[in-house]
């Protein structure tokens, strides 16, 4: 008998388990999307197809306000996080290897490993003391908090891109009369762009759906879209939330598809 390579798909019961996992992952989301088109206002009883919840959500002044706040925070935080992450990635890959490298990676990726609730409490206490000292109550706290936990998400694709880059190209640029800044500007940066764009999108999506840290850090009247939805669902279950979720889902899928296409393309 010919020897065959090991393949997980030949383990008995593998197809069943795989199907169950996919059902568990996508069934609830599918239900959510379907019920966003429900004609009635229940999220459990189907009363016919309708688009009505989308205009309802759109015309809700509060929904618009929190959406705008979410987008503001996500945009600011992802830009800040990506800028910091780009510099961190340059710092960790464009220097001589030293023993501290692993430690630095751990430090940068800390938000991925520390439980979110711990970070949330720490930020609450930290920002509270600043609030007392300065009296400032604005959106800055949320933006700062989001920027911090988005850094590793932006950092990872950028570092991957930098590590895959041929260092000889930068040497070639300096050979061809480019100053270090010109070499960065004309060679490193353009080649890094797909990584930076991917990092920006990941950071944006991560910020957009954060609940835990936002709940702890936000001041009164600073609901973002996810915390607003959470509050709504607690009060009364409405198909309006389904419509908003579906739109968020659509936005995320678009961004993640773009991320996938950007990181896959190799030149």
């Amino acid at each position, binding site marked *: 008998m010919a020897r065959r390579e090991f393949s997980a798909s030949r383990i008995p019961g593998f197809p069943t388990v795989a199907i169950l996992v996919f059902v568990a992952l996508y069934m609830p989301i599918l239900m959510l999307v379907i019920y966003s088109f429900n004609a009635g206002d229940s999220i459990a009883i189907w009363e016919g197809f309708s688009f009505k919840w989308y205009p309802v959500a759109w015309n809700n002044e509060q929904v618009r306000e929190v959406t705008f706040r979410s987008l503001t925070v996500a945009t600011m935080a992802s830009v800040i996080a990506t800028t910091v992450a780009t510099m961190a990635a340059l710092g960790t890959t464009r220097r001589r290897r030293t023993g501290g490298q692993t430690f630095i990676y751990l430090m940068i990726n800390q938000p991925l490993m520390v439980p979110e609730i711990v970070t949330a409490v720490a930020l609450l206490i930290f920002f509270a003391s600043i609030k007392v000292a300065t009296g400032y109550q604005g959106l800055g706290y949320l933006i700062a908090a989001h920027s911090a936990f988005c850094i590793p998400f932006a950092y990872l694709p950028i570092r991957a891109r930098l590590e895959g880059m*041929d260092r*000889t*190209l930068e*040497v*070639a*640029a*300096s*050979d*061809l*009369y*480019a*100053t270090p800044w*010109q070499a960065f500007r*004309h*060679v490193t940066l*353009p*080649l890094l762009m797909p990584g930076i764009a991917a990092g920006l999108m990941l950071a944006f999506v991560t910020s957009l759906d954060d609940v835990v840290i936002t709940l702890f850090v936000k001041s009164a009247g600073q609901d973002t879209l996810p915390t607003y939805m959470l509050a709504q669902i607690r009060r009364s279950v409405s198909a309006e939330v389904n419509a908003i979720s579906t739109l968020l889902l659509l936005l995320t899928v678009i961004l993640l598809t773009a991320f996938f296409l950007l990181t896959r393309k190799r*030149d």
Partner: protein
Amino acid sequence: MPKENAIETRSSRKVYGAGSEAVVALDDVSIAIRKGEFFTLLGPSGCGKTTLLRLIAGFETPTSGHILLNGQDITDVPPNRRPVNTVFQSYALFPHLSVRENVGFGLQMKGRPASEIGTKVERALSMVQLGAMADRKPAQLSGGQQQRVALARALAPSPEVLLLDEPLSALDLKLRKEMQSELKRLQHELGITFIFVTHDQEEALTMSDRIGVMSSGRLLQIGSPREIYNHPVNRFVADFIGETNFIPADVHDGTATIAGDIAMQVAPDSPQGRHTIAVRPEHVRILNDPAAAPMRATVTDTTYFGTDSHVRMLLQGGTEIVARYQSEAAGGDAPTTGTDVGVSFAPGSVQVLQD
């Protein structure tokens, strides 16, 4: 005024790493490369050829010693301020730029006006016959075409010295031969100093004005291809370039004695004492009549190569030597195994080696 040297290295030494992991990549290399010459660095893998080029280009600073360009010390000048360009072994073309932008990169960084960049890029591209490919990206070119873009890119800013790090090693034999003559023609036309790195001895012999042979970070010998081939200074050089017979000998006053009593003339300034002599296989003559020859040998093996045969023999005194036997010229087939033959060495072909 004496002709200036384009590049000079003075006791240049390069050590990578430190402590127990230190690697001496270059050990006290002093070399003077003349203006407009085609100079080749030849040596086995890991002997420090690339390191020497990197020092000249400015990508590395020597651990000690100096680098001079036109007599000026440039040891501490960064690469972007040296009028020296490199053709990298991996080509290192910028993947996000078109062929035209790649070739124009150096001039653009120098801040030349667009009109000048345009004409110089066109000229460089036509020099390597790639005018039709100007708008392509490097990924859309064949290996040979990429190689020529790399050459055009390095030549476009009109450097004083061009460094080529094994630029042909990735090409197949036919393309390689073509590029060899193309490089030679370009160098002749432009009059730029070329420093060319290879580990292919044939490439070095056919292309160079002078060759520097390196081994383990040291420069062993500098000379014209003819000098290096005919008068290698030591066993390594003789062995690395072409095939050679090595025979132990006693050397005194211009005479080398082998196998106890066979004496032959060597250069009067040869080193004295117990040494090895080197004779190329094509300088070993085979005579069918042993009595008429100064030395006798027994054929142990004959290999046929078409135009010539390699005849392996046991020379009297017990040393094995190889002769290149040209059937046409000798007017007969090579002697068969077991035959006793006479042997002589062509006059002036015996070289006494330093070690």
